[in-house]
């Protein structure tokens, strides 16, 4: 059996499943179901909009003489008309201590202050230290404030003092890195939420064929691998149809009720377009990984009752995987984060968080290759277990609980 034949057989199986699901009356209920809570959300809330208003604007501490700070604050005030929705960086005056570098480090490490960065050196040797992109909004604004303050100090329209020296750190109390955790968690949660709701269906995928005996017709005509691949991708396709419908409805809702949707979330390290694309890709691989496991587990069940009993423990297992991946958020280089990225079943969760926190792209390419490899492995193992324990092919195989007690 060549790969092409296996895949074309899988397509035949998948097409049947997809049509049987999508062109059924119950599919409409499936599509409408998730929209109800969304609708309630909009009716009772504008929750997102309100949360945004409560948010404190990003703050930069300025270690300088009161005179320099007054000039900087004046400069900032001149730019205030440009604010429009997204607040300008707020400046906070801090009196210099004898050991300025130590003071700077202390300020950056202070969690409760939520400082984005520290500006020291006054107007003569301005130095910004913080954890933001060099081309980020904060740095540009600080540059403008300093330019304007220097111009005000010299009283000459064209005079410019030394430019702001910029030192980027990995972390600070209110740094973007820690703000990105929100984006990371949001991405993880969305994938988790969708997978929990959608992958559970794969548990019962083979029950139909087993109970109406079609499995014999299928197994005689195509490899069991094809049956598994076809079923998995049919359910993925069905899920994507659902998600497309919900996203469209969600986007219309957001356009109607919210000023800014994604604007209220800190931008991810890889940028929004790549992050959203990766979100889709990681949902897909996560669905395939977890779905393949579910398909394998479900194929061993012989009755609908068994599948129903299994659905709770497997959901809990998913929560556990999600929890494992959540551990690593905020510390992309920690053992937890790397472990969760390597362990195949939590890899997609860990990697979407990483996309929010780190700008590297190659890690995603290798993670995707790794995840796809595991999808194939899990499918093969599931199919071979199915052949052996359900179709009773090859040397005798039984699950431990199917073995007769030795007593």
């Amino acid at each position: 059996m060549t790969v092409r034949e296996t895949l074309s057989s899988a397509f035949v199986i998948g097409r049947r499943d997809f049509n049987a699901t999508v062109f059924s009356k119950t599919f409409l209920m499936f599509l409408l179901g998730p929209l109800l809570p969304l609708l309630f959300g909009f009716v009772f809330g504008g929750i997102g909009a309100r949360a945004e208003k409560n948010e404190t604007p990003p703050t930069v501490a300025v270690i300088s003489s009161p005179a320099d700070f007054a000039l900087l604050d004046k400069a900032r005030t001149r730019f205030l008309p440009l604010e429009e929705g997204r607040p300008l960086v707020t400046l906070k005056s801090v009196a210099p201590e004898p050991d300025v570098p130590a003071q700077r480090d202390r300020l950056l490490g202070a969690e409760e202050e939520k400082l984005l960065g520290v500006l020291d050196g006054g107007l003569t040797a301005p130095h910004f230290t913080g954890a933001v992109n060099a081309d980020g909004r904060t740095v540009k604004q600080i540059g403008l404030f300093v330019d304007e303050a220097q111009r005000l100090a010299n009283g000459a329209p064209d005079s410019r003092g030394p430019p702001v020296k910029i030192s980027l750190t990995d972390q600070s109390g209110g740094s973007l890195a820690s703000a990105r955790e929100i984006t990371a968690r949001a991405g993880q949660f969305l994938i988790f939420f969708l997978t929990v709701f959608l992958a559970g269906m794969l548990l019962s995928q083979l029950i139909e064929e087993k109970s109406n005996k079609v499995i014999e017709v299928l197994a005689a005509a195509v490899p069991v691998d094809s049956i598994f691949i076809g079923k998995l991708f049919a359910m993925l396709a069905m899920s994507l149809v659902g998600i497309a419908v919900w996203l469209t409805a969600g986007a219309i809702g957001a356009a109607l009720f919210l000023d800014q949707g994604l604007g209220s979330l800190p931008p991810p390290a890889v940028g929004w377009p790549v992050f959203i694309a990766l979100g889709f890709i990681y949902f897909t691989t996560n669905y395939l990984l977890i779905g393949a496991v579910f398909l394998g587990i479900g194929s061993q069940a012989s009755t609908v009752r068994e599948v129903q009993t299994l659905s709770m423990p497997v959901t809990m297992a998913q929560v556990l995987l999600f929890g494992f991946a959540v551990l690593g958020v905020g510390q992309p280089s920690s053992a937890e984060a790397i472990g969760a990225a390597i362990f195949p079943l939590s890899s997609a969760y860990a990697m979407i968080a990483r996309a929010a926190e780190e700008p590297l792209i190659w890690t995603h390419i290798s993670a995707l290759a790794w995840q796809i490899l595991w999808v194939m492995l899990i499918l093969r193992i599931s199919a071979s277990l199915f052949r052996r324990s359900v179709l009773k092919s090859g040397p005798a195989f039984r699950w431990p609980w199917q073995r007769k007690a030795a007593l």
Partner: protein
Amino acid sequence: MSANYAATATDMIKTFGDTMAVAGVSLAVPTGSIYGILGPNGAGKTTTIRMLLGIIDPDKGSRALLGRERPLEAAHEVGYLPEERGLYPAMACEEAIAFMGALRGLPIKEGRARAIALLHGRGLGDWIGKPIRTLSKGMAQTVQLLGTIVHEPKLIVLDEPFSGLDAINQAKLEELIRAEAAAGATVIFSTHVIAHAERLCERVAIIAAGKVAFDGAVDEARGRLRPIVHLRTRAEDGPWRAALPSDARRSGREWKFELPEGGPEPLLRALLDGGAGIETLSIERPGLHDAFVAIAGEAAARKMDEPVEVAA
């Protein structure tokens, strides 16, 4: 070998738990023949067929289907009607037939067109568009049978195809099997009803207790038995009795025995010369049933006559 035989099996063994379902089956199905696998329930017919088709692998031994060691590689040229029939209940008849064709590599559009033609050709045009669940069991079985042949397979494997069909549909099925064979296909079917095998098959394998007790032409199976003589005489006793074999069974003045080696002439002469007074005499060619009894044994034969639960 592959050109002459559509399917072969060599010493296939299959064990389920503690039971040996198939204990060393060897078969050779000549290309273009109608081949019966005959045996009582539980003899290992279905397991043999499932191994031949590659649904399951034998524990030991090998098989080849249309010359391929891996049966699934020949899947596009094979049609299979399992003993336990099964279709998706929500599918319309023509869709179910087209789907079964698609599983065997037939493009779905072509399958649909052929399905409609097949249904019309059997006067079943009004089934088009009807979901399987609205059909009776026998009707659904007909749909599945059409799905089995829609891709015009070279080899058709039917597991207990006659069970669950009424006499009219059994006759139609026999007709279909003959037509497929006439068109060049090889047909393998299993049955526990000897009459079907006797009417249809050129060759049979008699399976009993997981083993092939006989594999060959039906005539050859019959040929293993001598013709049976039924004799009724007026005389109770006489010298003519010497011409009858010692194991002849007698009830009153009726005798039943195998025709002796010498043939009918010496027997007749002895009866006439000895004054037996022949009232009736018949020499019957043994049926496949007798051959089956002789080959598989009385126990297996009794099992064949047991009532059978009809497969779903």
